[in-house]
């Protein structure tokens, strides 16, 4: 950087030079060999795929992959010499591994939209499932009751998990008591609790003991167990980013410790805290196992959170997946699409809020 200070007049010129990166310049032989190394194995594989009866997976694994590795190795040998060969292998493998993950993801999202849209209509979003049996035409009924149920359960879990999660984060970053390492340890351990175990816990404590019947409240409590660690950990990260000067400044002005936290630190971290909440919601919204155990099942729209069994999107999908009737399965795909859209909305909100975060 010192050169730029002394040669201010030449600054644009130097920057332009830097941007060109002469050491990264590639000789034409490199470009050509890479192009050939990409095209030749693909062409051979395509010929084998379309003109012979060798099964596709065999062509890919036995022919294409080794060919691609060899071709890349040869290209590297020609253009960069002996030391390039290992490099070419790692490049091919890394790109291949990335494509593998991408193919899975695209297949997942693609089939979800293709199959889900078949069930989609306005009435699918607003009607419930009361007069519907697995063979009813897709023109009737929908997942309105399940959407409401999911929202109700998530709202209840937020009532419990958000205050406690944020309090945990405040304890770690603001109160800084002696037990900080232990609290962090317990929160991390809690984040590993399997969702089915959270469901079993609520089932034993509240439902089998007779304190509650299957209801949205029980589901919300099970979700809260899963949501709490996410909220606590994200909020902790966010509170750490608040400059120490704000705290000392507030204290110097005579504010009490509690007021500093409630009136200065938390408002300063507002968007981050909301991100924590949104991520917590996204973490739990698709969890199925705990709800299967504690909320029961319902086809009608229920809004009583305390005593009536209720439906939710995950349990609705679960109930419809392995039915032998195509219409029921299409309904499951439709509900899955609604669910993934809800998750997507939450993530977009978190992204937008997280963008302005101080790094």
């Amino acid at each position, binding site marked *: 950087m010192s050169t730029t200070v002394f040669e201010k007049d030449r600054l644009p010129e130097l920057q332009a030079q830097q941007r060109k990166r002469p050491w990264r310049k590639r000789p034409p032989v490199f470009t050509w060999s890479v192009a050939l190394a990409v095209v030749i194995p693909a062409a051979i594989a395509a010929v084998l795929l379309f003109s012979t009866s060798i099964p596709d997976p*065999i062509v890919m694994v036995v022919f294409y992959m080794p060919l691609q590795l060899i071709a890349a190795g040869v290209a590297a040998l020609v253009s960069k010499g002996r*030391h390039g060969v*290992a490099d070419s*292998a790692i490049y091919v*493998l*890394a790109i*291949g591994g*990335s494509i593998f*993950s*991408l193919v*899975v*993801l695209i*297949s*997942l999202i693609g*089939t*979800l939209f293709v*199959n889900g849209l078949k069930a989609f209509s306005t009435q699918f979003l607003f009607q419930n499932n009361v007069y519907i049996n697995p063979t009813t035409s897709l023109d009737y009924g929908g997942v309105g009751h399940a959407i409401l149920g999911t929202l109700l359960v998530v709202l209840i879990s937020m009532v419990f998990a958000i*205050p406690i999660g944020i*309090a*945990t984060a405040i*304890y770690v970053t603001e*109160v*800084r*008591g002696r*037990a900080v390492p*232990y609290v962090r340890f*317990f*929160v*991390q*351990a809690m984040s*590993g*609790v*399997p*969702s089915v*175990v959270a469901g*079993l*816990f609520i089932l*034993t*404590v509240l439902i*089998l003991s007779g304190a509650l019947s299957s209801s949205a409240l029980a589901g919300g409590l099970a979700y809260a167990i899963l949501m*709490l660690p996410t909220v*606590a950990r994200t909020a902790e990260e966010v509170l750490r980013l608040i400059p120490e000067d704000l705290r*000392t400044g507030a*204290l110097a002005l005579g504010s009490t*410790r*509690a007021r500093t936290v409630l009136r200065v630190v938390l408002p300063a971290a507002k968007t981050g805290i909301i991100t924590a909440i949104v991520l917590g919601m996204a973490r739990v919204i698709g*969890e*199925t*196992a705990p709800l*299967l155990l504690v909320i029961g099942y319902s086809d009608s729209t229920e809004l009583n959170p305390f005593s009536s069994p209720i439906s939710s999107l*995950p349990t609705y*999908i679960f109930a419809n*997946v*392995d039915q032998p009737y195509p219409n029921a*399965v299409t309904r499951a*795909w439709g509900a*899955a699409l609604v669910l*993934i859209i809800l*998750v997507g909305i939450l*993530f977009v909100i978190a992204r937008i809020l997280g963008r302005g975060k101080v790094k």
Partner: protein
Amino acid sequence: MSVIEPQFRDLNTAATSHRGDRIFNRTITTLAFTALVVLAGITIFLGAQAVPVLQELGPSYLTTTSWDLTVDPPTAGIFGMLYGSVLLAVIGLVIAVPAALLLAVFMVFMAPPKVAKVLTSLVDLMAAIPSVIIGLWAFYVLTGPAVEWQQLLHEYLGWIPIFRNESGNFLGTPFIAGFVLAIMMIPIITSISREVLSHTPPELINASEALGCSMWTMLRYVALPYGRGGIVGGIMLGLGRAMGETIAIFFVLKLVFQVNWYEIIESGGGSVASLIVSKFGEANAGFETQLLLAAGFFLFVLTLIINVIANLIVARTGRLQR
């Protein structure tokens, strides 16, 4: 040159003389121990259900594999299920670890920044897909090609014991279930490895480039050793998630009460979590529910151990890196 360290006073202890502050501190401290209370609650309440089961059946509940409550005395054992959970997780790891590490390496060291950014979002998206949707997809989309792969494996590599299949039924195999777990583990392992690898000090990378290292040598001798602890921790966290996975496995794995030791493309296997869901619907409120709660207790203990180890590894590397 001597630097005078400013003495920071612990603001926290200084300000507790105010009454409002004392109340605030106490409330926050109490709430902060909720995590401990919940963990202790799970241990106590589910443990209390496991005790009568162990009294009734003895250690055979953990060492045998059966589930028949119609005979007298009833037999139940979850060894096959516990072992199945581990087997599925191992299959998942074998697929997920290379894929996730390669993806992370690609994102950090090879892809142009814009591509890397898009990939990061996609990996986050993948992590956010609920397991019931992955199960739905696996049930209707993945099983088709997976059966074809398994048939080919059986045909050409059937002489290797793990690819043995005598029933001719390639549905509901540990391989498919393990593949599904891999899909769930890939985003977890990728995002942690990406995080760790992207914190490799640039001066180390620059130095290795200046010494003439190629990408492979740099990865092998600089980046991977540097991030090893974090990557192992990430793998353990993925493992913890895989052990507790329920719904997707429920759709794609045929539960059998025999130990399927290693025949990964033979129909039938075990998983504690999906045992709980599959038996819960028909369970009567008495002994069978208790059996399931006990299974949940041992699943909890198993995942807790894995997660604690994982977090200790990640925490230790974090400290080393800072």
